[in-house]
C-alpha cells in the first residue's frame, strides 16, 4: 500500500496576509487616536479642531499621494519637502513682485514641480543613481533655488480678502457663517483618481511591476525607463499641488524651510501600507497613514505634551508601522 499522498500543507491565512488588512488597521488607529484625544481633551472635540487638522494636512496628503509612486518602485523622493517651498516661492514671487495673475503663479508652481520630478526621474532611471542619493541632491538644489527665486525674501501669497486670494477658497469655503473644509473633497477626488491610475492604467500597473521585479518587467519588453521616470514626474506634480495647498493655508512661505516635510509624507505612506522595499501600496492607505501623523502632530499638544515628546511618540508609531509591514511580509512568505 502506497503511503498516503502528503496532503498539501495547510495554507495559513493570517490576518496580515489578507489584502487591504493594513488599511483597515490604520483606519482603526485613526479612529482610536481621534477618540483618545477627544476623551482626554475637551477642546479637541470642537469642529474648529477638525478644520485645523484638515487645513494643516492638505500639503502633506498631496505630497504623500505623489510620493507613493516612487516608493512603490522601490525608490524614494526626498526632494518634495524643500521642493514644495521652492515652487511656492517661485510662483509667489511672480504673483507678488511681478504682478502675474494668481492662476499663472499656480501654474508655474506646478510646472516647476513637474520639471524637478522629471529631473529626478532621469537621474534615477537613465543615469542609474540610487534614488535616495539623487533625490537628496535635488532636495539640496531646490532648497537653494527657492532662495534665489525669491531673492532671499519670504513670500506671502495674496492674503484673504485681497485681490487674487480666490485660491484660498479652493480649500476652505464659508457658507452661511460656517467654514467647510472644501479641500478635503478635492483630496478625496484626487485619491480616487490616483487609485484608479495605480490599479487600472498602464502607468500604475507598470510602476508596481517595476517595484516588484524590475528585471522581469524589462525582459517583458516594457519601456521601463519611461515608466520609472513617470513615477517621479507624478511625485513632482503632486509636490507642486502641495505647494499651492501650503501657500493657501499658511500666511508666509520662508526660504530655507521645508526640510522634514518629506519625512512626514513618506512616513505617512509607509504607515498606510506602502512597502518600504517597493512593490505594493495603496493611495487610500497613504491618505490614512498621513492622517495618523497629522492627528499625532495636532492632537498631542492638546493633552499637554511638550513638543519634544510629540516627536518621540510619532517616531515610535512609525517604527510600529514598519514592523507591521515586515511581519506582514514574513507571514505571506511562509505560505
Amino acid at each position, binding site marked *: 500500500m502506497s503511503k498516503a499522498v502528503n496532503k498539501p500543507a495547510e495554507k495559513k491565512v493570517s490576518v496580515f496576509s489578507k489584502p487591504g488588512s493594513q488599511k483597515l488597521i490604520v483606519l482603526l488607529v485613526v479612529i482610536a487616536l481621534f477618540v483618545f484625544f477627544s476623551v482626554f481633551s475637551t*477642546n*479637541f472635540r*470642537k469642529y*474648529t*479642531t477638525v*478644520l*485645523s487638522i484638515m*487645513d*494643516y494636512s492638505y500639503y502633506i496628503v498631496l505630497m504623500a499621494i505623489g510620493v507613493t509612486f516612487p516608493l512603490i518602485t522601490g525608490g524614494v523622493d526626498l526632494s518634495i519637502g524643500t521642493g514644495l517651498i521652492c515652487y511656492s516661492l517661485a510662483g509667489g514671487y511672480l504673483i507678488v513682485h511681478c504682478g502675474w495673475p494668481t492662476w499663472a503663479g499656480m501654474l508655474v508652481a506646478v510646472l516647476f514641480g513637474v520639471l524637478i520630478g522629471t529631473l529626478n526621474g532621469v537621474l534615477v532611471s537613465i543615469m542609474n543613481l540610487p534614488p535616495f542619493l539623487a533625490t537628496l541632491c535635488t532636495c*539640496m538644489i531646490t*532648497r*537653494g533655488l527657492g*532662495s*534665489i527665486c525669491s*531673492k*532671499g*525674501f*519670504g513670500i*506671502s501669497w495674496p*492674503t*484673504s*480678502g*485681497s485681490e487674487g486670494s480666490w485660491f484660498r477658497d479652493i480649500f476652505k469655503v464659508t457658507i452661511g457663517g460656517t*467654514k467647510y473644509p472644501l479641500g478635503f473633497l478635492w483630496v478625496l477626488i484626487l485619491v480616487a483618481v490616483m487609485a484608479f491610475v495605480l490599479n487600472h492604467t498602464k502607468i500604475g500597473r507598470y510602476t508596481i511591476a517595476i517595484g516588484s521585479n524590475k528585471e522581469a518587467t524589462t525582459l517583458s519588453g516594457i519601456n521601463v525607463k519611461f515608466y520609472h521616470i513617470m513615477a517621479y514626474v507624478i511625485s513632482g506634480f503632486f509636490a507642486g499641488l502641495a505647494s499651492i495647498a501650503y501657500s493657501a*493655508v*499658511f*500666511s*508666509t512661505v*520662508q*526660504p*530655507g*524651510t521645508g*526640510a*522634514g516635510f518629506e519625512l512626514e509624507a513618506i512616513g505617512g505612506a509607509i504607515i498606510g501600507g506602502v512597502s518600504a522595499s517597493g512593490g505594493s501600496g495603496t493611495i487610500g492607505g497613504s491618505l490614512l497613514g498621513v492622517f495618523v501623523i497629522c492627528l499625532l*502632530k*495636532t492632537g498631542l*499638544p*492638546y493633552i499637554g505634551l*511638550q*513638543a*519634544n515628546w*510629540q*516627536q518621540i511618540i510619532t517616531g515610535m508609531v512609525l517604527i510600529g508601522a514598519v514592523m507591521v509591514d515586515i511581519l506582514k511580509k514574513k507571514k505571506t512568505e511562509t505560505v
Partner: protein
Amino acid sequence: MKKKVLAAVMSVAMIATLLAGCGGKSEGTAALAEEKKEEAAPAEEKKEEASTETAGGNYKFEIIVKSYQSSYWQAAVTGVNQAAEELGVTVSCTGPNAESDIADQVNMLNSAINNAPDGIGLAACDQDACLDALQTAMDKGIPVVCFDSGIPKAPAGSVLSTIATDNYGAGATAADNLYAALKDKIANATAPVRIGEVNQEATSESITSRGLGFIDKFTELATADGKSVAVIGNEYYVNNCKNAGDEASADIIIEVAVPAQTTVELCATEASVILNKEDTIGMFGSNQVAAEGILTANGNLGVLGCDAAAGDILAAGFDAGSVIKSAIKDGTMFGAVTQSPLAMGIKTVETLTAIANGETVSDIPTDGYWYDSTNMEDASIAPNLYD
C-alpha cells in the same frame, strides 16, 4: 588590489582636506555643513555683488545673520549693505536657513574666522554654542560685534559691542499694553483666566529675553492689582521667570508654548491649543514667526480681536511683515512691538568700521516701539515697519 589602494589614497586625501578645512576639528557634521554652506553661497554671492560695487573697500567684514527666515533679517541685511556702500567697506553676509540650525551657524562662524576679516558681525542663534568660536576669534585678533541677540557669557573682551533692542524691555512693553487693555476683564473675572505665550524657541537671547520680559512684567502688573499669577508650560521659561506661582490657586495662568522647530506650522499648532481653551483672554507671540503662527491658528477659530469686553482674545505680536501689518490694520491683531532692524544693520557696520579705525566702542541699544492700528502710520513708527 589597485582599487583598494586607490580607495585608501582617496579616503586619506579626503580626510586630510577635511581636517585642514576644519582647522583640526573633525566634526561629523563638517561634510554636511560644507554642502549647506555652498547652498548659502548663492544667497551670499548676491549680497556680495551688491556691496563690492563700492570704490575702495578698505575693510572686509563678515556678517552672519540668524537666518534668512523672515523679512526682519532681510531688512537688517539691507541696512548692512546700505552702510557698507556709504562707508566704502566690503561686507559678506551669510546665515543658516532656519533659526534652529545652530550647528550650521557655528560652522559659518568658524569659516568666517578662517577668512581673516577685519571684523565679524554676529546674530547668534544660540547664546552658548558660539563661545569656543568667539575665543578663537579673540585669539586671532578679530573683533566681534553682536547684533539683535547678545551673548551674555561671551569670553571677556571677545565681543566689543552689542547692538540690540533691549529685548527684555520690549517684552515688557508688550505686557504693558496688553495688560492695560485686559485690566478690566481680569479685575471682573470670577474664574481663572489664561494668557498664552508662543516663543519659537528657548535658546536665543532675543527670544528668551522677550518671553521672560513679558511674563515678569505681566506678573508684576497683575500682582500690583491684587491678582495671583502662575506660569506653566515650557520648562525653560517656567524655571527662569521671577515667580512661577501656583497653578491651583492662581487668578491668571500664563501658559508658555515652544514648538519643536522654529516653523510657522508648528507655532500654529501650539497656538491652536491655547486659543481653543475657554479661559484664554490674551496671546503674545515673541517674534514674527510666532505671531504669524498665532494668526494662522486663528484662521479657523476666529477668536482674535480688539474688544476684550465682547469676548475677543487680544493678541500682541512682534516685528512687522505684511501679514502682521494687515492683521493689525483690520483689527485681528491688537498690536505689536517692532524693532529697528534697518538701524541695527547700519549701526553694526558703522561700529565695525569704527573698531577697525581704532576707536573705542560701547553697546548700542536700539529702540523697540509698540504699534497698533492707531499709530502705525506715524512718521516715527512707519519706517521700521518693513514688509
